[in-house]
């Protein structure tokens, strides 16, 4: 064979299907999968997405190195292909291969024992987005049918930008990524899109070529700073000071868009100077409402702040001043505006003062502030801030900067995080008692009725607010529980969280006291589960990897949670660290071996399809197959054991003998393809996908653009029109239509008059130093997501391992290397009062002295003694986030709740072994 023939024959296939990888980057890039015989030969981005708007680059080719190497993983050495049962002690690395029959029976019996002896709430599932909707939906369905506990995914992965939630009543502030192209000023702030947004990064460089200025604000000269116009090095954890100083400049130099701020924000609302609380209707009218607020109209004095709209409708609210107001009891108090209070606070952040705090030159702060005020500015903010203890303060300060400069809801503006697109069929699915459009109509009409009933009680509420109410209602009957309580009671975090020296020093009481106070006040009514007395006995991890992920470390879970568990069941396609510590590993099929979709988000506003290019390898099965079989086995064993029904934690009677049938709705949903088809058809019927969409059209086109946001809160929270021929800008409805925000004040809210917030002096945004988490040590770990993996997904992929050093790294500055007598390539030990780990040192001038970067994603089993980087992270949660029942500060699944911090952990470093 000639050489040319040799390579010609390597580029062959006999089948092409669509595939995407359903990992937790949520990008769901449409790939073409080329299969030869029964082997996936390679994959390549589809590149078939049509341009949306004239003059805006298209989305192609959407992909990254992880996606382009996925096929290799199908045959990777870390793949699990048979059901395995642990032999010897947990984590000992010895297994026996068992049959599916044995495995399912063993799991079913452990579950029935638990239900029988301790109650179903001792069965706990970890939620995730890993693996796609058809990995997650099956076990969520089983948990729902059982009344078990599912730990809220966002509380586990801490991707919750609480500051955005505090400000906007939601965190779904993401426009489509092509909106980046329309920006004039891009602030890469707490984000490193060159690592973490590879498919979309081109819009940044293309915006630059169109005239945008690109700024990187970060402690280190990171990969995204490289292609920026300005690098603004900031001391880690002081971003709020920088943002507030820019706000100070904008206001003091008269650059603010005060009309925008008056309309969109709470800055004109009146606050009593005696109590520091908003002036409420109840204060001045007997029987008045608790959630009606006021502003000072320049013509007519005190006036109700409009609740049904953000539009001022002729009002001219005063933004600054102090006025006397007569209360209902006849007494007089002084009121002022939020802006007046804010300006007092901002006096602490004049640039020269802020420079001392954040290390950014005062002249630079002024320059940046003027740029923000004069341009369509977008903050590209990933999910890094939520992982700081005081990340909420950073986000609130960033949002304030945008609010003062008219920078949201307009093309090229806003703070770019993530927003869920409205796959309404998926939301409907758990409610469906049979398949088909009639059932869909019945449910949708029922929901509409429920919404209308709620609207009758509050005619000024928006659809989004009512959607949230509906979600809150269902949360109190659903399985989802914020993990903070589980971690506190059962996973050993209580002691850690009570360590005052690792917490915000303004915390006056113990964490215990705040938590019990919050629970006692009913702020977490119905969702503070499982309670202290309900010990977990069976833990399911389906594609999640708590021992890699858990802030607080693998050791904490193994020594506190694991001993309580009769059965740790891991469903995964690979040997994660958690799988290594499981009792049973059930092998799941990978993408390219089954149909699947990932949860769609608004970045691309598309639903992308992953087809079965080959059958699952080995004995692996899809999660739908696994959990429907488990449901069936549970029914069979329940009948054999005469355990036909039980009462769950919410006093609902559950019937085990029907479980198997209920799971598949009497056979209506026998396979995941049928389930997916139903989701897609229902979404099309509900108007969020094109009419006629089905698995068939997905299979043909690979990816479909959404046509609407749907009727459910997650979609509606983007508050924007979906047009087939235009870029989508989040919050367009708030700005163009005056649609109120779903906050307590119905405005973007910078003033939080909750007593705890006042106690913490966080009623307004401010800067607070990161607490000395981990101890009083000289170095601070900032971390971040790596370029090479999505969390630990793809970290075991051989070609990808070859694109870096293939082992964990501690990236450090040259100065600190000298200080610690470390040379490039040495093995070093990172230690603090919580734990330690070892890794290879990479010494570089790009890192700020005092800063260490440990990119996450490496499995603990890639570190000596399996002590991963999370061993030094105490996993502190901010006590203020236990607040509830304050307008928008209340639990919703995936929403407001305490999340553990892992950035800005203090450590020291020593050399273990020289090169």
């Amino acid at each position, binding site marked *: 064979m000639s050489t040319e023939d040799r*390579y010609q024959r390597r*580029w062959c296939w006999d089948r092409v299907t669509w595939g995407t990888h359903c990992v937790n980057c949520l990008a769901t890039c449409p790939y073409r999968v080329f299969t030869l015989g029964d082997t996936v030969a390679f994959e390549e981005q589809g590149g078939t997405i049509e341009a949306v708007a004239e003059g*805006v680059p298209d989305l192609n080719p959407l992909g990254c190195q992880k996606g382009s190497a996925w096929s290799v993983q199908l045959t990777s050495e870390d793949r699990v292909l048979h059901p395995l049962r642990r032999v010897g002690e947990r984590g000992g690395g010895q297994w026996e291969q068992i049959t599916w029959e044995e495995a399912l029976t063993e799991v079913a019996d452990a579950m029935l024992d638990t239900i029988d002896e301790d109650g179903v709430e001792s069965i706990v599932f970890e939620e995730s987005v890993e693996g796609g909707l058809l990995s997650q939906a099956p076990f969520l369905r089983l948990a729902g049918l059982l009344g078990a506990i599912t730990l809220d995914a966002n509380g586990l992965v801490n991707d919750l930008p609480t500051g955005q939630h505090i400000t906007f009543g939601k965190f779904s502030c993401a426009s489509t990524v092509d909106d980046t192209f329309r920006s004039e000023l891009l602030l890469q702030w707490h984000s490193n899109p060159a690592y973490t947004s*590879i498919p979309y990064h081109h819009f940044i460089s293309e915006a630059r*070529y169109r005239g945008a200025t690109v700024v990187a604000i970060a402690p280190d000269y990171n990969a995204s700073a490289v292609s920026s116009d300005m*690098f603004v090095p900031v001391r880690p954890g002081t971003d709020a000071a920088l943002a507030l100083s820019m706000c100070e400049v904008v206001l003091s130099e008269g650059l603010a868009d005060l009309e925008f701020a008056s309309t969109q924000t709470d800055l004109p609302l009146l606050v009593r100077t005696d109590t520091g609380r908003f002036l409420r209707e109840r204060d001045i009218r007997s029987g008045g409402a608790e959630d009606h607020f006021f502003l000072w109209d320049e013509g007519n004095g005190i006036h109700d702040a409009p609740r049904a709209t953000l539009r001022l409708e002729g009002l001219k609210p005063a933004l600054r001043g102090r006025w006397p107001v007569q209360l209902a009891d006849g007494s007089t108090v002084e009121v002022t505006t939020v802006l007046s209070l804010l300006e007092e606070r901002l006096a602490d952040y004049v640039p020269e003062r802020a420079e001392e705090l954040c290390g950014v030159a005062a002249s630079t702060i002024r320059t940046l502030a003027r740029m923000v005020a004069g341009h369509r500015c977008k903050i590209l903010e990933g999910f890094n801030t939520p992982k700081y203890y005081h990340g909420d303060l950073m986000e609130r300060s960033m949002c304030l900067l945008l609010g003062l400069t008219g920078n949201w809801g307009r093309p090229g503006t806003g703070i770019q995080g993530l927003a869920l697109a409205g796959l309404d069929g998926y939301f409907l699915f758990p409610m469906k008692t049979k398949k088909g459009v009639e059932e869909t109509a019945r449910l949708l009409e029922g929901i509409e009725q429920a919404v209308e009933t709620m609207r009758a009680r509050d005619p000024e509420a928006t659809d989004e607010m009512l959607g949230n109410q509906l979600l809150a209602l269902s949360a109190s009957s659903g399985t989802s529980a914020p993990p903070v309580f589980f971690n506190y009671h059962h996973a050993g975090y209580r002691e850690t969280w009570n360590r005052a020296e690792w917490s915000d020093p303004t915390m006056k009481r113990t964490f215990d006291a705040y938590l019990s106070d919050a629970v006692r006040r009913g702020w977490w009514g119905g969702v503070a589960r499982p309670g202290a007395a309900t010990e977990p006995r069976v833990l399911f991890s389906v594609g999640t990897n708590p021992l890699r992920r858990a802030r607080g470390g693998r050791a904490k879970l193994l020594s506190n949670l694991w001993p309580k568990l009769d059965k740790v069941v891991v469903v995964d396609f690979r040997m994660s660290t958690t799988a290594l510590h499981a009792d049973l590993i059930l092998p799941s099929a990978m993408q390219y071996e089954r149909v699947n979709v990932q949860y769609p988000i608004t970045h691309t506003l598309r639903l992308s399809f992953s087809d079965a290019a080959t059958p699952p390898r080995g004995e692996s099965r899809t999660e739908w197959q696994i959990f429907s079989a488990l449901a069936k086995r549970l029914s069979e064993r329940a009948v054999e054991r005469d355990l036909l029904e039980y009462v769950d934690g919410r006093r609902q009677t559950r019937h085990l003998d029907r479980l198997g049938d209920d799971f598949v709705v009497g056979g209506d949903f026998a396979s995941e393809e049928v389930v997916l088809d139903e989701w897609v058809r229902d979404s099309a019927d509900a108007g969020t996908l094109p009419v006629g969409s089905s698995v068939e059209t997905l299979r043909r086109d690979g990816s479909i653009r959404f046509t609407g946001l749907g009727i459910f809160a997650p979609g509606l929270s983007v508050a924007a029109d979906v047009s087939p021929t235009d870029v989508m800008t989040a919050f367009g409805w708030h700005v163009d239509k005056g649609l109120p925000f779903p906050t307590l004040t119905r405005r973007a809210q910078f003033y939080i008059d909750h007593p705890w917030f006042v106690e913490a002096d966080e009623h307004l945004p401010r800067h607070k130093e990161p607490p000395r988490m981990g101890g009083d040590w000289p170095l601070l770990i900032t971390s971040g997501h790596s370029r090479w993996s999505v969390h630990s997904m793809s970290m075991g992929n051989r*070609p990808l391992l070859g694109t870096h050093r293939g082992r964990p790294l501690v990236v450090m500055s040259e100065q600190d290397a000298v200080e610690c007598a470390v040379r490039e390539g040495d093995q070093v030990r990172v230690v603090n009062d919580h734990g330690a780990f070892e890794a290879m040192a990479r010494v570089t001038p790009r890192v700020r002295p005092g800063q260490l970067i440990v990119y996450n994603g490496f499995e603990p089993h890639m570190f000596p003694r399996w002590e991963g980087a999370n061993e030094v992270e105490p996993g502190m949660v901010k006590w203020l986030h236990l607040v509830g029942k304050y307008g928008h500060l209340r639990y919703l699944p995936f929403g407001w709740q305490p999340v553990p911090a892992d950035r800005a952990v203090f450590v020291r470093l020593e050399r273990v072994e020289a090169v």
Partner: protein
Amino acid sequence: MSQDIAGTAVAGQVAMVFDLNKCMGCQTCSIACKVLWTREEGEEHQWWMTVNTQPGQGTPKDWEDMGGGRKKDGSPVTGHQPTRAEFGGGWEFNYDEVFYGGKGRSVHLKPTDKGDGTTRWGMNWDEDQGAGEYPNAYYFYLPRLCNHCTHPVCASACPTGAMYKRPQDGAVLRDEDLCQGSRFCMEACPYKKIYFNEARNVAQHCIMCFPRLEEGVAPACARQCPGRLTFVGMLSDPEGPIHKLVNEWEVALPLHPEYGTTPNVFYVPPLAPYRLNEDMSIDYETPRIPPEYLESLFGPKVHSALATMQGELDRVRAGGTSEILDTLIVYNWLDLFGPFTTDPATLDRTPDKVAVSLTAKRTEPAGG
């Protein structure tokens, strides 16, 4: 044997332009190539396409100090043949031992050290290290593949005549049946983009995805590049972006032109953020990346290329328009690929079909 096979009649020369201002170092190009072409035994360490952080030692380690190339008079410059350890990479890992060995935490997953030095270097070992001093560190990404040079010194150094420039597109290929694994090409190539396949005793390098080009499909590295920075086309096409960027606007330059091989891969050199003064205020005057460093990579023309780029940026920021920047924006993805815009998924490439077409090609008269 001719000393320089540049005289080969080439109907057209396929060329590439990488815009370094759009490159984020993600290695999707490297992976695209790896997954498609170099996954068999002996190819573990081969990365025909690589991205390195500059300044840096790169791949193979310190390749810029290894010699090779061609003097102005056309005579060869001798070079070092990069060793397996200098390439590094191609690691195996102790999966079995960790997962199933019953050793618990006493072992952890890591590259298996075979004592040959290959675990201490890799294709991207010095990723994001850079140079300079904080906060004025500097670095950027440099994707590299075979330059498919007009003067392929690799071919000239081959004792068996195994290497040639394809007449139809100027791609430099090797007949692996003729290659005896003597590796003079690896010494002679100044870019060190040729690898030795130990298992088959042949050298290998980028084939410019010729099977794809023949079907009108862009090379995998270019078509899979998420940064949309990789242009492919015929160098002489006056309407194509490559000709304009290279010859008309002169903003795309070859790497190390002094190596004398006349590469057909070009780079738009990198701009960088402003430097900072001692007091952390912005220094608008001094470039962050030392111009002499860039000159050492791209030759003296780099200064005017950067000045052109900066001028265009200034103009669009002032509200003007720029044909150069609009070209580099690439509004329509397919505009990157010149004549190679075919979607591979639309092709019939079953092994039988390909075998038939190969047989047919062989029976065509020479030169067909």
